[in-house]
């Protein structure tokens, strides 16, 4: 008899793998962006099953919201019609070979390493927040600085040359 959480895990992981397969195979690039959204929501489900409620929320907000929207904007600004028929390049057989090799090596490593598995007690969201803002306060601020610099850099990069300078 299959347990409920295992069943939920298989549902979520089929979303993740199905979305991932569509992202790397589908011809229409907008469909690929929506398949990425499905994969990200499946990952949020995986986070929920691993007792990481806050991470699931963050995953839905950042990936489901921000990342997919930004990618759709990039597709819109770079003219979708150009992509028809040039989604795969000539090294496709080599890419299949490389990814299957990597998959085989990783599967072998996973199977040959007996990893004892025992469920931990779930962490409360309060503990996570306290830990993040006490022990990891400085790295947290540095991360926000990195984000700020990256966004300013992005704005400077895409600015028109003939204005503001």
């Amino acid at each position, binding site marked *: 008899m299959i*347990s409920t959480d295992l069943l939920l*895990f298989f549902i979520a*992981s089929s979303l*993740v*793998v199905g979305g*991932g397969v569509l*992202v*790397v195979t589908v011809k229409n*690039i907008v469909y*690929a962006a929506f398949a*990425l959204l499905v994969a*990200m929501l499946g*990952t949020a489900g*995986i986070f929920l099953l*691993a*007792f*990481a409620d806050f*991470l699931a929320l*963050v*995953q839905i907000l*950042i*990936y489901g919201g921000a*990342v997919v929207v*930004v*990618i759709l904007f*990039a597709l819109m*600004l*770079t003219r979708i019609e*150009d*992509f028809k028929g*040039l*989604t*795969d*390049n000539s*090294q*496709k057989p080599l*890419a*299949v070979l490389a*990814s299957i090799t*990597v*998959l085989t090596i*990783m599967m072998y490593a*996973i199977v040959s390493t007996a990893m*004892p*598995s025992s*469920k*931990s*007690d779930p*962490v409360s969201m309060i503990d*996570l927040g306290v*830990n993040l803002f006490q022990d990891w306060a400085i*790295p947290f601020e540095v991360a926000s600085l*990195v984000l700020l610099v*990256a*966004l300013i*850099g*992005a*704005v400077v*990069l*895409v600015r028109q040359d003939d204005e503001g300078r």
Partner: protein
Amino acid sequence: MTIIHFQFLSAILFSLGLYGVLARRSAVLILMSIELMLNAVNINLIGFVAFRGFGQEIQTFGQVLIIFVITIAAAELALAIAIILRIYRNKNSVNVDEMNILKG
């Protein structure tokens, strides 16, 4: 549900992302595949954090680590999209096969 399920899912997703990075021709699609690979890493990490019988302290640390990974991934995505838009404006294409001006 044990740790090995998370490891298998992560390995499959990482290989899919690797295939996408190598086989796709549009820079935006390559970016999406990189996001898939980052997600595979996060799934592996959360599997280890939650199913290895760690105490509260290490578990919280693992989740904080994943928050940082997501932050850096967002910064990387913003910069990459900006670079792609810039290349599109200069070369009128996002096909990575045409980006070969550094070729010796």
